[in-house]
């Protein structure tokens, strides 16, 4: 999972002298979250949809025709953009990109390759990543187990039990929620299981009989009916 394979290629770029009104039009028309600002081939900043909307809000609350005119005709991208924005490299992994976003509280990154902007990662790309991961188009059945301690063999055992109940396992993701166990206790995880099966109830019964606590279950076929 390399950033290059998930990013939006050939992103729309603007330069610092672009009017903010123009940048706002581009963001709206193409439904983008952020535009990298590039002057002379060098990344100088990022102008986000949020910054544009905030500026527009500040202007509209003045109720002043002169402020409207300044906003529409004079205000430039370089007056609003964030300078020295956080970036990721095209060769970084998506995990690194996600970690950086969580750390900085940032929702979009220009993607750099050899000093050039070659792409953008924004909420749209992150949505796409999550959708691919969870097979959002496939209508899988789902079960969440936990909290439990993952030991060697635990994941394999869960897969065996589910397949033993006549289901076809698509994915097993152990995830950590909240704090670490602490005090030397082993870390507790929840395990998300995704599979295709016509007999959801049977799968749940088998897992519970084997001592795995089932905290969520979603039957793809029942959903279809309602």
């Amino acid at each position, binding site marked *: 999972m390399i950033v290059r394979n998930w990013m939006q290629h050939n992103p729309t770029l603007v330069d610092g002298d672009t009017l*903010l009104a123009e940048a706002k039009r581009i963001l709206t028309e193409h439904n983008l979250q952020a535009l990298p600002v590039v002057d002379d081939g060098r990344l*100088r*900043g990022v102008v986000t949809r949020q910054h544009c909307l*905030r*500026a527009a809000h*500040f*202007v509209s*609350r*003045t109720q*002043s025709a*002169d402020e409207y*005119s*300044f*906003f529409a005709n*004079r*205000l*430039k991208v*370089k*007056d*609003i*953009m*964030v*300078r*020295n924005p956080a970036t990721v490299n095209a060769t970084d992994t998506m995990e690194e990109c996600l970690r950086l976003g969580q750390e900085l509280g940032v929702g979009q990154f220009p993607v750099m390759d050899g000093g050039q902007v070659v792409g953008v990662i924004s909420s749209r790309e992150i949505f796409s990543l999550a959708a691919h991961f969870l097979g959002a188009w496939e209508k899988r059945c789902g079960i969440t187990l936990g909290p439990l301690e993952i030991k060697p063999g635990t994941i394999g055992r869960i897969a065996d039990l589910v397949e033993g109940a006549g289901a076809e396992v698509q994915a097993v993701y152990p995830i950590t929620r909240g704090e670490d166990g602490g005090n030397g206790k082993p870390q507790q995880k929840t395990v998300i299981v995704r599979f295709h099966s016509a007999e959801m109830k049977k799968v749940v019964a088998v897992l519970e009989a084997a001592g795995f606590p089932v905290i969520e279950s979603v039957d793809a076929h029942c959903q279809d009916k309602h």
Partner: protein
Amino acid sequence: MATAAKAKRIDTASGAGLSSAPELCWFEEVCKEDVALVGGKCSSLGELINAGVRVPPGFALTTHGFARFMRDAGVSGEIPGMLEGCGHDDLDHLEAASKAIREMIEFHPFAWELEDAIAEYYRKLSVRCMVPAVPVAVRSSATAEDLPGASFAGQQDTYLWIRGVDDLLLHARRCISSLFTARAIAYRIRMGFPHEDVALSVGFQKMANAYTAGVMFTCNPANGDRSVIAIDSNFGFGESVVSGEVTPDHFVVNKITLDILERTICNKEITYTVDLKTQKSVKVETPFERQTVQSLIDDEIIELARMGKAIEKHYGRQMDIEWAVDKDLPAGGNIFILQARPETVWSAKREKESAEEAPKATSAMDYILSSLLTGKKVT
């Protein structure tokens, strides 16, 4: 919180030498002891903000930032060469050299890193003020140690209603280049002060959209009477009053009872204001019917006098204060202090007198009481 910010700043400043010294800082991060870092004007603004006085927010390019620009621009290196053989009385030669140096500075862009740093402070200021590309006043702030003799330092340079990063950077450079007027160069040559050692800070302060502005003395500038506050005002920005281009309205307020003792309404022919179409500061003729109208209402006069008293008390001496009444804000929160410096003429005189005379009066009340005791009339 101000102290926390300050402690943080000192931490960074005391790091590994010059490179870690701040190139930019907010006004509230400095106080009156920081003249060497941000010059007299900005440090006094920081002092006022931390004393709880209503001052428009802003930030400063510090003397380190200034030094960095001069290094990056290669200006420091070229100046000695350009001034080669200039005598302090060789006016033509000096004028030519000054022009060349000032052009070099004004047209030399900031290095990317410094430009980004300034622009980022400006963006944050705009967000704080809730105005995109907020209009600012760009002023040079001289460090007195390096620049004795206030008049030549070029600190009269003030650019009003500057909007947008490009204009901001241009006017910052104009402030810097004001160090190299022919007069300033001549002065330094005569005093043997090396040109490389001059230092300057540039302040960027949110522009108060002044309906009325002017100056205030916490004594009577005519006779040094400390029991009163004297206020001069005119419509528009305070520049018309400061520069002496109009005869302003003059008010005298009793410092204790806050009664308005004197009220002189003058014929005020011009106003400095902003042309909102072009977003530029302009000088216009005041409409005839407004010229003889009192430019400051009584409530504002009293509120100003009250603020003047608080500032005098904070500094423990008489002050010379610039102020403005913002037209976009409601009454009660619309009077801003733009500058406060110690009043010099009467303070110096009194210090001399008090050394000979009675015990030194530090507060206005002491002065009034001691005057009463010695049988002097106070208004």
